[in-house]
């Protein structure tokens, strides 16, 4: 497993542990955790907190026949099959494969110009998830963000004024973030990004173009 330097915040992990995040964010969290043992362990802690809270909940009596009905349900349903083993080192970890297919070559990319491509993934509408394909060496325009944006690097790497992000790293951006990311030379950069608002570009022309680019 590659060295991961940028991890999930406690807030996002709690949201994921409690299942209160929009689906698009959950997808990024689940994909990151598939690559990051450290965050998987931290998620375990927050799930344990959830278990302790559930244990402390005022118990609500279940119906007299609840157990019998549950046993009937059990005998109706087939046994859960063992999950297929993970495909080691696939560009798309398992949770993402459910949304985007087996690998980048099967994705229906849409061109955004300059070789940059994206693909929206089908999630609930409270936030959007998409894949980004940025050719190695590409400079993205300076832009800000309206809501919360999470970007997870799956292949290649990019850096901006503040930091460097490679496979497994999470870049969190919000209203206060303005940056000019550059995809590094080497492998083309593929990222999974989720946002609860459209991006804001700083240049007037870019802002005018935004509705058409839908980025």
């Amino acid at each position: 497993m590659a060295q991961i330097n940028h991890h999930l915040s406690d807030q996002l992990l709690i949201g994921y542990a409690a299942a209160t995040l929009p689906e698009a964010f959950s997808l990024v969290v689940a994909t990151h955790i598939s690559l990051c043992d450290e965050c998987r362990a931290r998620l375990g802690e927050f799930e344990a907190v959830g278990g302790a809270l559930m244990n402390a909940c005022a118990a609500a009596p279940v119906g007299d026949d609840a157990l019998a009905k549950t046993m009937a349900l059990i005998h109706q349903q087939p046994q859960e099959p063992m999950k297929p083993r993970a495909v080691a080192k696939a560009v798309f970890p398992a949770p993402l494969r459910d949304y985007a297919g087996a690998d980048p070559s099967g994705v229906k990319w849409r061109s955004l110009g300059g070789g940059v491509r994206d693909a929206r993934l089908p999630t609930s509408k409270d936030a959007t998830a998409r894949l980004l394909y940025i050719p190695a060496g590409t400079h993205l325009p300076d832009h800000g963000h309206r809501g919360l944006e999470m970007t997870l690097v799956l292949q290649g790497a990019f850096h901006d004024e503040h930091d460097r992000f490679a496979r497994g790293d999470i870049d969190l951006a919000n209203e206060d973030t303005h940056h000019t990311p550059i995809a590094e030379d080497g492998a083309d950069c593929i990222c999974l990004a989720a946002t609860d608002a459209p991006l804001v570009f700083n240049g007037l022309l870019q802002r005018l173009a935004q509705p058409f680019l839908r980025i």
Partner: protein
Amino acid sequence: MLTENVHHITYVAPPLPGQGPTFGDFSPAGVCDTTMTDPSNTPDWADHMRRIHKMRDEAAFAALFGHFAPRVKGFLIRSGASQTLAEECVQEVMATVWHKAHLFDGSRAGVSTWIFTIARNKRIDALRKQRRPEPEEVTWGPEQEPDQGDVLALQQETELLTQAMAQLPEKQRSLIEQAYFSDLSHSEIAAQTGLPLGTIKSRIRLALERLRHAMQ
């Protein structure tokens, strides 16, 4: 009141060899289950899970059901489910516990933690009608048994966590509860409690730090 004792339902005795337990094998509260002989008075739920997995032990399942079903239902109601929906979901959650028993690994999660994750998934499915992407499974050997020392250590830590939660100041605990039980964002919680956003975040952080400290 008839329903009063329902959640204390427990099984009477361990099944005799060759005499599989049936639904008649449990009775209302007042009857000690075998786990009461445990000096700590806490049933070994991980062992119940092992028996459900290995032996399809319905008595072990009934005991587990007696303890956890009312808590799962309480959790679902606390999260906004109606009585009817909660009752229905509890049955599905507990059926999933049976069907996924082979996926439970006591060295990675306590039983209450594991059941919480199933209840939480059911909640998002039933209340929000959303899919929940799950991380890739960590791959272990095909039939690798978890180390019993690890299982025990984890159970003890879970116990400590429950105690640490109980000792949190009321304000901090209720904020953590809100973060887990409702779909409220931090700003919505702020509106409900009248606390500024920065305070909420720092209180939640403080509560988590206290929990971590208590666990050391």
